[in-house]
């Protein structure tokens, strides 16, 4: 066993002697390491500038976006009309314009933003509000036929059929 170990040791020693001959000087390696360190420092400072600039850009864009968002939301936080009739009907007076009631809150500044958002959500579709009395069915014309009044009233003795001009529901009205 010892003999075998001695044999291995000798082989390794031969290897060690060969390695010793080709070992580079310490100063050479140390200086190379120092040079690498300088190089990395320069690289790192370059990277730092790039990263810093990118960070500033992101912050700037983000800040501008935020400012625009806040500005928009404050502009829209005014009271909003809920109902508004485009076509006033004869003999019908539309109700007075009502305002959306803003509930009182403990933190007005914080809740103002929420209210604005709620209002925006409510107003966004903005359907043209029309009165129910004005509504007409789109198939209403189907209920009428030409010369309908002939069936509804009997013409007078001195009245000829030709004198009855209105034959369509629109003409009757």
């Amino acid at each position: 066993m010892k003999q075998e170990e001695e044999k291995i040791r000798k082989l390794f020693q031969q290897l060690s002697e060969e390695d010793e001959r080709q070992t580079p000087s310490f100063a050479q390696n140390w200086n190379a390491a120092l040079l690498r360190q300088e190089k990395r420092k320069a690289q790192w400072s370059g990277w730092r500038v790039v990263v810093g600039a990118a960070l500033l850009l992101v912050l700037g864009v983000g800040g501008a976006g935020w400012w625009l968002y806040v500005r928009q939301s404050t502009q829209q936080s005014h009271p909003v009309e809920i109902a508004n009739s485009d076509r006033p009907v004869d003999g019908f007076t539309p109700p007075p314009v009502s305002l959306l009631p803003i509930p009182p809150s403990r933190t007005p500044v914080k809740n103002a933003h929420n209210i604005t958002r709620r209002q925006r959500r409510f107003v966004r579709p903005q359907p043209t509000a029309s009165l129910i009395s004005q509504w007409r069915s789109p198939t209403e014309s189907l209920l009428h036929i030409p010369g309908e009044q002939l069936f509804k009233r009997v013409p007078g003795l001195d009245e000829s059929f030709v004198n009855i001009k209105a034959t369509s529901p629109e003409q009757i009205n």
Partner: protein
Amino acid sequence: MNSHELRVELEKHHREGYGWALSCCARNPAEAENVLQAVYLKVLQGKARFDGRASFKTWLFAVIRRTAIDERRRQWLRRLRMDRYEESIGNTACAEGADAAIYHSEIRVLFRRALAELPRRQREVLQLVFYHDLSLAEAAKVMEVSLGSARTHYERGKQRLRQLMKGVEISDEAGRGENQKAVPTTE
């Protein structure tokens, strides 16, 4: 330990460090030198700090081993990206040249080949014990394995090396070292 003391210690262990780096880099001198420079850089930058828990030599060898593994991984990734043809030409030319220049003796070449054929752990433990005169416990620390595991690798490595070097006679010209340990100690 201040930077000057550190430098003195590193200089003292430079030759052995290079030998160990060679072993960790599949006996490629250029790679070994590169690893050694990377280790010195780590020391300079304070990424590798000697805290006195082990001997300086053990600590340095552990740093070299870890750096060599990192470098190997990085090179593997680089090789994946690079043209394979170019890479193979460069490597073979370098290896052949090194062989011819350094290892004249047939036994040395055989021994080198046998070492290359050993599994990494077995090669490492044999190198640390027989080349760098470390005890098995120190070798285990450098390899970051348990003592039992290091012993197993050591025994298996010896056995495998015996098989690979069967019938090879070794001359006494190299056995000049007087202060060598016959059997590696565990302490």
